[in-house]
Every structure is written in C-alpha cells, then in structure tokens.
C-alpha cells in the first residue's frame, strides 16, 4: 500500500503544473476562451512536446506508456488550471478506444498523429433519449458492401465541433435499449453526410450536435466486433470516469483552497471573516468533501484496468457518486462563502464551480450512479444467518 508518486510521476506532475502555471493563468484562460475554437492550439503543441498527448499510448505509437496514475496527474492539473483543450475527448476517450481495442492499422493511423498534436478526436455516445444509458442507441449502422452506413443523431459530443475524427456508437442489430448489437465506428469528421452544430457547454468547453445521414464507413474503420461493442463502450466510459475523477480532485481542492484564502483576507465587522466559527466549520466541511472525493478518485484510478467488469463498474459508480456529491457541495459552498464576488465572471471560483457541475453530469450524475451501484449489489454482501 503506497500513495506516493514515483520519481517519474513526480517529474510529470512538475512539468505539467509548470507549463500551466506559466501559460495558463486566469487572464490567459479568458483570452483562450473567447478565441476562435475556444482553446489554445499553441498550448496544445506544448502538451505534445511534453509527451502528454501520447501519455497512455505505447512507445511504438508515439506514446510514453503511461498508466492511469499518470492520467490522473495530468487531469488533476487540468482541473486546477481549468484548461480548455480537448484532452479528455482526444487522448482518453477517442484515443483510448483505439489504443485499447483498435487494429494495428488503426493504431498506426491515429495514435502517432494524436501524440504529435496534429489531430484531435471525439467520442459520440449520447443521444436525445439515452440520458446516461450507454446502451440506449437509436443511431443505425446498416451493412452495405464490405462496410456500414450510419444514420442518426448524436448529442453533446465533447470536441465534436472541431474534432478531426469522431468515434460513433451505433446499432447494428436489436432493439433501442439492447446491450447486444452495438458497434463502434471511426468516421472522418469531414465525411459526406456529417453535419455538425457546434456550441459551448456551461463550463466554457466546446461541444456539438452531430448528425449522420448516410455516412459510409469502411470495414477497416470498425473498432471491435460489430454488434459486440458494449463491453468496450463500458470500459472507455470507465476510463472517462476515472479521468473526470482526477480532474475533479484538481477542481475541488482548488475551490477549497481559494475559499480558505478568501476567508483569511476578506474583512467585515473589522475582522477577517475566517475568524467566524460558522464559516470555519463550513470550510472544514468543504475540505472533508474534497478529501473524500480525492480518496475515491485514487480508488477509481487503481481500478480502471480491472478485468472483472462488475467489480470495475461498481467501483466507478461509487467513485462517480462521491465525486458528484462532493462537487455539488464544495462548489455551492465556495460561491456562498465568497458572497457577491463569488457570483461574478471576474473570479475563478465561479468557473471552477461550473466545471465541477459539468463533471457531475458527464458519464452519469451522482443519483444515476448511486442506482447503478445498488443494482450491482454494493460492496458488502448481506451477512448469512
């Protein structure tokens, strides 16, 4: 049992925190946010130079063979800086699907280009009716020739507006809510029949509604066995959850610290408001919620490669529930304790709060995962009489 980072991990942490510390202060972020695209291509290049964009990929595909702990380190720094670049959709989700389940040809085609910062990707799994159920898919994949033709509509696709390629979940067979019959398809974002409507999400990130109308996909652009992709989709959702948990650690600890700093310096009634016990206790409760979230993020990180899917999913649902609950509490209290200034766009606190809110929603909110966790039987078995 060891919670310390290795020397290499500490170096990674120092290098990304160094980069973001230098280049991603709150004022710079405001500029990136209003630039076209809404994030910095320049910083993206520097991620590539540090090896971050190939972090989880093997060396032969231009990566550095990092594991889940390395991803947690990067995501936590991204959360702290509120970096806007599409790291999660490109490296963790779309890149992750190809890294884990792609053919050698697919890996060679996409992973080195991602690692070099030349292309970005997106993972399109949400539909209007699906809510958080990954298997609820209407988008159809009909066999045609040696490949498939896709028709349907994908919603709230993170980085869907600018991605160079999109990995789409679509139904090969079965009913709308069947777990069998799903496929994963890599489509070129500029392919015929794709139309995208880009927009910003509440936290300032970029997303899109993606419409697929008679989009042809060659057989070599299919990931896994068509019709049997659901376990793959679950695994990549778990990768996404673990990464979001890591990001949440950065967000929540930053919110807690920023609030403590504010309590130390803000004067009312002639004293620092941090001298008031009611505010001290609230800040302590934020710390507890943030630490509990961190503990579960570590557990999610360690469990993300667990081959026993039930154990893995259960742990991910538990972690996502804790992260969601903590995110809401810490976020709301941070705004409350900052008072009026916390309500303004001028202060970073409100932006952390918005990201925390979005993190709860992505891949299923706390109530959704609480139910999933219960359905899977929880951690402890009933005692035997």
């Amino acid at each position: 049992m060891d919670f310390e980072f290795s020397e290499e991990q500490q170096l990674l942490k120092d290098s990304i925190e160094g980069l973001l510390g230098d280049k991603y202060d709150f004022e710079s972020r405001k500029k990136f946010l209003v630039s076209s695209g809404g994030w910095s291509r320049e910083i993206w290049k520097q991620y590539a130079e540090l090896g971050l964009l190939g972090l989880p990929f093997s060396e032969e595909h231009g990566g550095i063979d990092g594991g889940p702990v390395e991803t947690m380190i990067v995501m936590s720094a991204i959360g702290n800086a509120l970096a806007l670049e599409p790291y999660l959709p490109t490296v963790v989700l779309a890149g992750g699907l190809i890294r884990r389940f792609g053919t050698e040809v697919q890996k060679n085609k996409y992973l080195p280009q991602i690692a070099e910062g030349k292309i970005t990707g997106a993972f399109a799994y949400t539909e209007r009716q699906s809510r958080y159920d990954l298997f609820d898919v209407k988008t159809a994949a009909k066999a045609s020739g040696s490949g498939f033709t896709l028709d349907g509509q994908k919603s709230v696709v993170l980085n869907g507006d600018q991605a160079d390629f999109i990995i789409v979940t679509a139904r090969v067979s079965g009913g709308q809510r069947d777990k069998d019959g799903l496929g994963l398809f890599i489509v070129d974002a500029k392919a015929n029949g794709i139309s995208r409507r880009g927009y910003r999400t509440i936290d300032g990130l970029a997303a899109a509604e993606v419409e697929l109308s008679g989009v042809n996909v060659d057989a070599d652009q299919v990931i896994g066995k068509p019709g049997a992709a659901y376990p793959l989709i679950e695994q990549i959702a778990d990768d996404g959850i673990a990464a979001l948990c890591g990001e949440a650690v950065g967000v929540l600890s930053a919110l807690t610290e920023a609030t403590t700093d504010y309590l130390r310096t803000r004067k009312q009634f002639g004293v620092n408001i941090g001298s008031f016990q009611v505010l001290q206790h609230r800040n302590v409760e934020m710390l507890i919620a943030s630490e509990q979230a961190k503990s579960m993020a570590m557990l999610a990180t360690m469990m993300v490669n667990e081959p026993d899917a039930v154990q893995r999913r259960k742990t991910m649902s538990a972690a996502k529930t804790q992260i969601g609950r903590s995110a809401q509490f810490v976020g709301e209290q941070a705004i409350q304790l900052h008072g009026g200034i916390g309500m303004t766009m001028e202060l970073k606190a409100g932006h952390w709060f918005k990201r925390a809110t979005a993190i709860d929603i992505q891949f299923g909110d706390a109530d959704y995962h609480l139910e999933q966790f219960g359905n899977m039987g929880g951690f402890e078995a009933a005692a035997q009489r």
Partner: protein
Amino acid sequence: MDLNFTKEELSFRDEVRDFFAKNVPAETKRKLTEGRKLEKDDIVNWQRILNKKGWAVYQWPKQYGGTGWTPVQKYIFLEELQRAPAPDPLPFAVSMVGPVIYTFGNEEQKKHFLPRIANLDDWWCQGFSEPGAGSDLAGLSTKAVREGDHWVINGQKTWTTLAQYADWIFVLARTDPKAKKQEGISFILCDMKTPGITVRPIQLIDGGKEVNEVFFDNVKVPYENLVGQENRGWDYAKFLLGNERTGIARVGISKERIRRLKELASLEVSGGKPMMEDPRFRAKISQVEIELKALEMTQMRVVAAEGTRRDNKPDPASSILKIKGSEIQQNITDLLMEVVGPFALPFTDEDETAGSNELPIAPDYAGPLAPIYFNYRKVSIYGGSNEIQKNIIAKAILGL
C-alpha cells in the same frame, strides 16, 4: 502508487482473520452481531485470549509488550478485529492510560501497571469530564492538594464509562489553582477502592447505564501515583486524546453493520417485497456504503502517511476520520432502526429481561435497534465533539 496490500500483508491478514474466526467466544460474537450489551466477563475473557497470543496491546512499543507491527499491520489487525466482530481491547486501559504511563510514567509505574493493563487485571476508567468541563476540558475544577506524602482529591467527574466495573481511575485534577487553566493540572492514578469515592450510574436515553458520575470526597491518594511532572497533566491529556482519535473511524465495525443491515433488509418486507428491493431504501444503503468506502480510502491514506512521518504527533487528518466515521456509524444505526418499521417500537429493558424465559416480541432482532440508534448519538459527542474536531481542523489544517 499502489493501493493493494503486499503479499506479506495479505498473509498477515489471513493469519489474523483465522485467529479471530477460531478464538472469539461464540456468545460474545452473537451479542456483538445482535447489538446486545457485553458483560464485564465478555470483555475481560476476550482481552486475556488476545494477551495470551501477545496481541492485547499490539500498538504499544515492543519493550512494553507490543508487537512492533507496521502502521499497515496495525490497521489490518483493527479492521479484522472489528470485522469478526470481536470486542476492542478496553480503550481506557490499552489506548489511553497505558500509553501515558509508558511515555511519561516512572519505572515503577511501568513495571507495576503495564502488564496488568495488558491482561486486564485492572479495569480502568477515565476521570476527565466534569459537569462544568466538557468541550472546555481545561476548565475542570476537581482539586488535588498535596498533604505530606499524599494527594487529597475533592470534586466530581462525569460521563465515566463503565466506572461500575473499574478498579482504577486516571484523574485530571487541578494542582495549582493560581496558574493559567491549562498549566495547573496534574495526571493522577487512583484506586477505586479508596475511601471517599462514590459511583452513581447515569441512565442514558437508550435505557442503559454505561456511564456514571464519580464523586471524590477527601480522597487520599499516595503522592507517587502522580504520572510525570506536577502541573503537566494537560500535555499528557492532549497526547492521550490524540491516541483516542486514531482508529476512531471504525470502518470495520461499519462494514459489519452494513452486512447486518442488508441481512435484515432481505428479511423484512415492505409492499410485499423485501426492503432490499425498495429502490428508495436501497439508495440510502448505497449512499452510506459509498461514503464508507471513501472513508476507508482516506483512512488508508492517513495510515500510509504515518509510516513515513518523522514526528510523533497524530495526523490532524485523523479529525476528519472522527467526523466522517461518527456520521456514518450514526447513519447506519438509523437505517437499522428503519428496516424493522413498527417493530422498532416495543422496548425491552435488557437489565430486567436478562435470564427471563419469556419469548421476545417478534422479530427477535428488532429489540436492540432503536436503543442503539439512541445510544449512538454519543459517537459524535465523545472524544472531542465533532464541532471541536472542526475547530481543530480549521486551526491546524486550514490555518483559520
């Protein structure tokens, strides 16, 4: 970063688990599982079984009879003990007065008391709280005046847990009334058979009588029963309360209680279906299970950090464990009461029904559940209330 136990730690866990499976007396285990009161003999017998194995004072330094285990091993031991379930070694003896004696006491005190503590030859109780000194413990007013080779103690202690069984009490008493309130206190050991000591039970809202008032009326105690230096007792008390907080998360006990809760929730029926299948009730169980897992991980972080800490001070993060651990324990007792519905209502006084042949009001497992719910309100109050813990965190961690 590796959150898994090593192979050695896993085989240690198996060894400990196997020992508990074979050696916890069946009757003691049954009482703990059902939430019934333990008798003095249950606790004494069990601690002697542990002592024979060399595990009664496992957390002490080796030279005083401890095991020399790593922080992780100690953690595993306590988890398995609570999971079994088995009684904790008497905390007032093993976790409180024992460490004060081996850290601050003289050679004679160590030689006399420590082996007797390990074997529970002496039952110890804690003479700290007073009617006017609860959270503000340093405001205590019990006095000890030196007269020749004796102390003469006058005053009153309260909330003294299991004083009715006690052979000895460790007392915080004011020995310098002129000093600042923290600086005039001494730590004195006192034989409960000394003339002038009166113990009066206090009945708590669960109906039980586990705590007492202890009155001191001109109680003459030999001078050499002072521990450490005169007027330094507050330092020793703070040291002791720091020890009290480690292990206070009681994760193992809460896990065992959740297994019990699920067992009862599969037996009890609501709307024609087991309570376990009621989505609202199941969500409540899931929520507390998730918080418990988070607490377990937080505790492991604290334990792992202990191994690398240089100073001997308890980690302020242990205050987080106390707050969260007590909230979770209380939450589970609430759900255990909820699960039996109207059968939480019939009250059985265990003192009166002990040894009675009368059949319990069905179901037999329901009787203790509401009393435990009431009784467990104490866990966020004792050992420094959760509000005091928040003051500690605000000061020591947040710097407010």
